[in-house]
């Protein structure tokens, strides 16, 4: 039920956005639930509603860390785990 599916925004018309889930078919979804949706954005759609934008650079960052982790397990493990913390926020208890 809580599944979110990535889609490419093709056009925005008021509260409704036209998106492509990767099959070339354009479908209408509700875009009013996310501020500032633009054509070209990759968004997460749930139950026909845009709930978030995908931040590609964050994925790239994770993949880079994972690759390094694989190459040098011991040295990088702590660094990788540290990188998981959301950077601009305090962490708790330690």
């Amino acid at each position, binding site marked *: *039920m*809580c*599944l*979110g599916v*990535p889609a490419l925004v093709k056009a925005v018309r008021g*509260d*409704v956005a036209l998106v492509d889930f990767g099959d070339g078919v354009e479908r*209408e*979804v*509700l875009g*009013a*639930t*996310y*501020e500032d949706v633009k054509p070209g954005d990759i968004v*997460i759609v*749930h*139950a*026909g*509603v845009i*709930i*978030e934008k*995908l*931040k*590609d650079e*964050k*994925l790239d960052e*994770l*993949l880079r860390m*994972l*690759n390094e*982790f*694989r190459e040098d*397990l011991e040295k990088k*493990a702590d660094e*990788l*785990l540290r990188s*998981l*913390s*959301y950077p*601009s*926020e305090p*962490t*708790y*208890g*330690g």
Partner: protein
Amino acid sequence: MSGKALALLRGGPLVNAILAKIRELAPKAVEAVGQAPIKIMDFCGTHEYTITHYGLRSLMPPEVELVAGPGCPVCVTPAFYVDTAIKLSLEGVRVYTYGDAYKLPGSGRPGGGIRSLEEARAAGGDVVVVYSILDAIRRASREGKDSVFLAVGFETTAPATAAPVVRGMLPSNLTIINVHRLTPPIMRYTFERHRENPIRGVIAPGHVSTIVGAKAWRFVVEDYGIPTVVAGFEPVDVLLAVMEILRQLSRGEPMLVNEYSRVVTWEGNRTAQKMIAECCDVVDAAWRGIGFVPESGLAFRDKYRIHDALLQYGIREPGPDEWSYDLPPGCRCAEVTLGMARPTDCPLFMKVCTPGTPYGPCMVSSEGTCAVWARFGGGGLAEEIARGIGLK
């Protein structure tokens, strides 16, 4: 996501590297905690799908137990609302619903009358399954028929209800049965139920977090001292979450971390949060087989009560004093939902109750724990069958 990225996130070498670290950390975590096994709970049906579909449970060392928690909003929808939708559909009111709730049994018994909207439709009821509320709005506007929308779901789905309401998109002939439920309150409730043998780590729901933000789970660390990781849905995401939880436990430093930062932000989707707050009040609400949980549901605020189907059709919701146990006899769905029992602990699992003929609600939605285990043989199901027939 590119094919290359996907291959890496699902790939063998990386998984093995993370598993090696998990195996190394697990005994240290047990030593630090002083109790085994370490119980780590997921709170999202899609995480349970990843865990079961990719066999992650079987990859865990003996010190680590992955437990499914309340992650399926369909499973916890009280029978009363299903019964109400069935009744309306048979009285000629069109009922729109998400596919997940179509087969959901109400309080009827198998062979004892109409149990689900699917059966209501077969009996001539007016039921239409839609992918999104937009479809219902369009059809209701076009066809002019008196209609209700059975709106179930957690915070992920609540914006789909709230946005059309506050944007004035609903035609006057379409009202809503609002059964949205909230995850932080049921998480607190679940922790209390596990006091004896506490939950040691939380894999927080990824898509609920897109709406509420990673910050919504601070209380898990601050009030309960439980390591918490907001995780994505690839096998590597879940394994990283387990590794991080074990690391925190072994150091005695519970923290909240956001592994799913490619989608989830600290603050969440503020536009959606505002719409939900504008549309609904937070109220005490019933959970199927569990009862009322404080401040765990959404109800239309007075100015939007006009969109409330129950008000429109003069139907009174049972209050806490009138609540009665609403699972079919023998079904252990409430315990399964709260992580107190596994589907295989239910004597009806895969005997009376199967995905084709669901007896209880956890066997219906693709994210119900019983349905996930039924399809992918979760958590040692194969072993249990082997034991059952004397092979082990």
